[in-house]
């Protein structure tokens, strides 16, 4: 139930009672999603969507963190251990 899926915002609009909704594309499947909890999100941004609600915006800069972490570990030589043939 807590699996959020990242998708890209295609459009943003308001429903009849003023709630921010949007169309979000998940690798080709487009769904109507409530964007009320990510007021800072714009068309083109990626959001993590959970039961029809965007619960957070994906930070594109931080998204590379995992890889720069690996890079840094490599540079520090932590991973330069001999590998069995």
């Amino acid at each position, binding site marked *: 139930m807590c699996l959020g899926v*990242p998708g890209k915002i295609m459009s943003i609009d308001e429903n009849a*009672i003023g709630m921010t909704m949007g169309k979000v594309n998940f690798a080709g499947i487009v769904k109507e999603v409530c964007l009320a909890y990510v007021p800072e999100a714009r068309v083109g941004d990626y959001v993590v969507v*959970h039961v029809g609600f965007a619960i957070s915006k994906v930070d594109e800069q931080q998204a590379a963190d995992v*890889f720069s972490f690996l890079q840094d570990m490599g540079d520090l030589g932590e991973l330069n251990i001999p590998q069995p043939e």
Partner: protein
Amino acid sequence: MKFVDEYRTEDGAAQFLRAIETTVTRPWTLMEICGGQTHTLIKFGIDQMLPRAITLVHGPGCPVCVTPLELIDRAIAIARRPDVIFTSFGDMLRVPGSESDLLSVKAQGGEVRMVYSPLDAVKLAQQNPEKEVVFFAVGFETTAPPNAMAVFQARQWGLKNFSILCSHVLVPPAMEAILGSPRNLVQGFLAAGHVCAVMGYQEYEPLAPKYHAPIVVTGFEPLDLLQGIYMAVKALEEGRATVENQYTRAVTRAGNISAQKLVRQVFAVTDRQWRGIGKIPNSGLRLQPEFAAFDAETRFAVGDISATESAVCIAGEIMQGLKKPHHCPVFGAACTPEHPVGAPMVSPEGACAAYHRYGRGFSA
């Protein structure tokens, strides 16, 4: 798929595994809280790739698994009423109650519908003014903002025929209950990334030093989990009981402020019963008095419910990290996904279902 595929590479996994191998010098037991993470760990075989010194135990983060039996029986009783359309996330429909489950109620002619979002339930209430629409509001901090919004919207639309059967639970009090138990085996936690996306991770900051257990906020893809494990093991090896954030692309320390605001407006903190574990103080949410009109429990008097638990199911011990699914005497025998005895065999987030599906714990 962007932000998914790149966190699944074999190269990256191999690098993290090597880093973990060079860091670990003695046995450690880590618990991942979230059932979604349990599933990924087992599906990708991460549990089997790790050095033997590291034991992963699987936490209570499976909403279907911890929803009290009494409430499932109550849901079944409400769903049987002819004036009711009972709505729920799909996972809940097959959970065995004392005598039946929601799917059987549907098979017997009850109006039970699976919804993707709680807003779909609100829509059903608008479209069916002659019916009472009830939504089974279960889950952790991740589903609380959607469910709060559903109630809030129902009030704005002036709907008199919408209510929720509420069984919300909160993660930090459960972690504290596990860490504080004299039988506790967990030395470090992978905290659930999406719970923290909503709530931030300030609540964990007093817990880590109090129980000498590092807590790493962790994402859901294989590389996220491997990095989370690496960070937790490194902290343990260095004797640090700190809170760290692996999942920086979706989680900030403060969390999602607008979501927290609506959750507080609609819900208040309350004691909750956790199936298999027992009552944990301040570990759940109930509707605020201002929204009491939307409470299905008071709207539908279904009489006294006396729930009877299965005598063999050890789900409670599994979710506290004391046992593994295959330690259960009926795992894979009397209890299978087709004929589940306990809730963790039903939900895709349940540890028993994950072990069964990916062949863990069967003797060779």
